[in-house]
């Protein structure tokens, strides 16, 4: 324990100049905000790209887009949303801000490495955005970047775009590793007095396990990125079989590579990636639900074990993305089974959220609205996952709009709803001011109903057999009848409305920063440590002269005999009795 005590007596070097405080900052809170702002910015780029794609599908005559631009927009939209927005925002943004505050640490264990992490992330984003300005534009290979197509002449961006994309991914992985090492070590080794692992809020558990997944899954992307980079630049044949140029019909210089190896490596990263995005969302939403329903989380230990089990299982399901790749059918059997097994801990979490709400004192605040919307959306997206997890059902649905609807529901919309809810929930701690409630509710209803109007019809289009990734439909009346085209136009209108409504959210963030109602330290009357800092927003070092001492778990709401309906984690057993054995079983 000697080492943790060191942290307590360590001198704090408070940064003084503007540069060391806000630019080259080593404070986890500033780094979190830097991460979040970069992620939100690049996410807006991806949002605009999706609006352009929807215009092309819904109203092709209204926008001057050719197939090249469509594929580029699609690729960049997917890659940005999954990696540069959601992964960065959950781990770099929420992870950085909340982990030290929630476990009672003064900062991450290695603040300098943490600072390097955010600057590498910025560099990776700049390299990614630079690909819009190189000859040939960004890559248009689809976000999965499957070779041989991704690096063969004729694919958009095969000259420079794909190189910049791979370099950017490699830099991002370096950034994520430096951050991730910090998050994991901080959770394991830098908790405060009395903060046992099983007293940590579920947010920390979710981000902790997701970060471990990131540290173990990103290597596969790193390796496949390097191999493909070598294939592109110096002409090795890792992923490239003997093939003929699609343009001239001449043989290319590649021989004997294995495209399916790339798919295995990519999805060995790609499936855990889904849970790198989902597990933090699970954790955050558990806390939002508990606080705003004024009720202790139901089955805390089960929730923790479910997160861990999902994390482990996520490494053995990757080939369910490859049922149509031509791999051995016995693989399909194995991976279908593991995929369906994951539904068990996931369903357990959904039941526990519902049982937390059951007979709770539900406050329909904006964070709670987003949390409820998350449960519904995640349930819908998860159920369609059961269709796609079964080989025989997947094969006809593969590469249709049903797949698009499924993954947008389950790992697009659902985590983003949690991001919004969490920002509404923690914004008062970050800035000291409340976000405007009315604008927040308007933003919620447009976003929530709007996304359903976008993605529900897509399931129908998928059943109809409409393939995804087609940029134009003239001459395809068989799969794109009049009715499908009008449905697509409707989806486009809804997408544009939802896209524009996000301006409400941005406006709210800026407006409330200056004009919002002062929040005080603990506006939601929550129990976890981040609400108990001496100052709001927390100062450098978070806790003033001495670290907090934790006596109970983070979910003591409505303890019998207590004066308040919430009992902060720092309240001792003499003041309010501790019923730890109740929730530990």
């Amino acid at each position, binding site marked *: 324990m000697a080492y943790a005590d060191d942290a307590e007596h360590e001198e704090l070097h408070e940064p003084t100049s503007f540069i060391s405080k806000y630019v080259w900052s080593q404070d986890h809170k500033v780094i979190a905000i830097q991460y979040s702002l970069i992620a939100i910015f690049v996410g807006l780029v991806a949002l605009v790209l999706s609006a352009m794609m929807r215009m092309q599908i819904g109203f092709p005559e209204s926008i001057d887009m050719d197939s090249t631009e469509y594929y580029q927009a699609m690729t960049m939209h997917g890659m940005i949303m999954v990696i540069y927005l959601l992964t960065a925002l959950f781990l770099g943004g929420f992870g950085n801000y909340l982990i030290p505050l929630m476990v009672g640490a003064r900062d991450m264990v290695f603040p300098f490495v943490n600072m390097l992490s955010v600057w590498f992330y910025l560099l990776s984003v700049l390299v990614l955005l630079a690909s819009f300005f190189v000859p040939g534009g960004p890559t248009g290979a689809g976000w999965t970047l499957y070779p041989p197509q991704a690096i063969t002449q004729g694919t958009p961006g095969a000259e420079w775009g794909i190189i910049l994309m791979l370099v950017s991914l490699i830099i991002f992985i370096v950034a994520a590793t430096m951050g991730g090492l910090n998050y994991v070590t901080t959770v394991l*080794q*830098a908790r405060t007095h009395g903060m046992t692992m099983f007293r940590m809020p579920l947010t920390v558990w979710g981000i902790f396990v997701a970060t471990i997944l990131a540290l173990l899954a990103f290597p596969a992307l790193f390796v496949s990125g390097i191999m493909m980079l070598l294939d592109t630049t110096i002409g090795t044949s890792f992923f490239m079989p003997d093939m003929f140029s699609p343009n001239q019909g001449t043989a290319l210089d590649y021989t*004997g590579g294995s495209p399916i*190896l790339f798919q295995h490596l990519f999805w060995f990263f790609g499936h855990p990636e889904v849970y790198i995005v989902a597990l933090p969302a699970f954790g955050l939403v558990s806390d939002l639900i508990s606080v705003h329903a004024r009720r202790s989380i139901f089955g805390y230990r089960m929730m923790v074990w479910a997160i861990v089990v999902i994390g482990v299982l996520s490494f053995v399901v990757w080939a369910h993305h490859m049922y149509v790749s031509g791999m051995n059918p016995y693989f399909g059997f194995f991976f279908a089974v593991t995929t369906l097994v994951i539904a068990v801990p996931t369903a357990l979490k959904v039941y526990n959220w519902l049982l937390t709400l059951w007979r709770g004192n539900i406050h329909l605040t904006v964070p709670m609205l987003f949390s409820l919307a998350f449960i519904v959306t995640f349930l819908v997206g998860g159920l369609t996952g059961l269709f796609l997890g079964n080989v025989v059902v997947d094969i006809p649905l593969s590469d249709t709009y049903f797949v698009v609807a499924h993954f947008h529901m389950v790992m697009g919309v659902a985590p983003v709803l949690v991001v919004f809810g969490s920002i509404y929930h923690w914004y008062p701690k970050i800035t000291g001011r409340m976000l405007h409630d009315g604008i927040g509710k308007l933003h919620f209803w447009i976003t929530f109903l709007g996304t359903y109007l976008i993605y529900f019809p897509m399931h129908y289009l998928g059943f109809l057999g409409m393939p995804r990734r087609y940029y134009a439909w003239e001459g395809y009346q068989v799969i794109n009848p009049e009715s499908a085209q009008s449905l697509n136009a409707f989806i486009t209108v809804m997408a544009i409305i939802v896209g524009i409504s996000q301006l409400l959210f941005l406006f709210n963030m800026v407006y409330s920063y200056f004009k919002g109602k002062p929040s005080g330290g603990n506006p939601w009357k929550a129990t976890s440590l981040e609400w108990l800092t001496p100052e709001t927003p927390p100062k450098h070092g978070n806790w003033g002269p001495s670290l907090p001492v934790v*006596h109970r778990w983070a979910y003591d709401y409505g303890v019998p005999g207590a004066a308040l309906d919430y009992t902060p984690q720092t309240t001792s057993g003499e003041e309010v009795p501790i019923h730890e054995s109740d929730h530990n079983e």
Partner: protein
Amino acid sequence: MGNFAPAKTTRTEVLIEDWASDKDAFKNVSWGKAMMWIFLLSDTFIFSCFLVGYMSVRMTTAEIWPNSSEVFALTIMGEHIPLILIAIMTFVLITSSGTMAMAVNCGYRNQRKQAAILMLVTAGFGLCFVGMQAFEWSKLIEEGVRPWGNPMGAPQFGAIFFMVTGFHGFHVSIGVIYLIIVAFKVLRGDYEERGYEIVEITGLYWHFVDLVWVFIFAFFYLW
């Protein structure tokens, strides 16, 4: 900690309680050491992916895989000896692990001069290894082996060889620089107050790089 946790009965429950107790999961393990272990776990996955990729490519490629004991043979003083250079390289690298372990031992005895010297010796062995690797590379390049093809068979042979040994050589080079920096700081007395755990952390990285080489050696040269 005892007054915080409820009584547990079975062995597994006690284990979980201990591990999850407050402050730190690994007692008496510093932040730096914990972080190095976690980094090495992540790096293990990188090398595993490289090696799995190598095995997969070797099995799927249509052309003949060159016979590694012939490709990596050297003729020394008229004797044709297969794998001799690799054997020497492996020996040098494993010896360096020994000097590293001695450095860690000296560090914990607060013999800072001996620790620094042994670390520099380790770095020297590392440089020696990288030098021999450069020799091996140039020999293969002279014989016409390129990342995109070679006269002996499957083009993936050169590609994988240069990529995996290059990535490992990069790790060794980083390790040499890391060792030299830490050795000088040790010699200067920067760690007199904090203690010499840093030598052990550097050693963890170095032993890891050696261990990876054993796998590369086995899968690449002996298969």
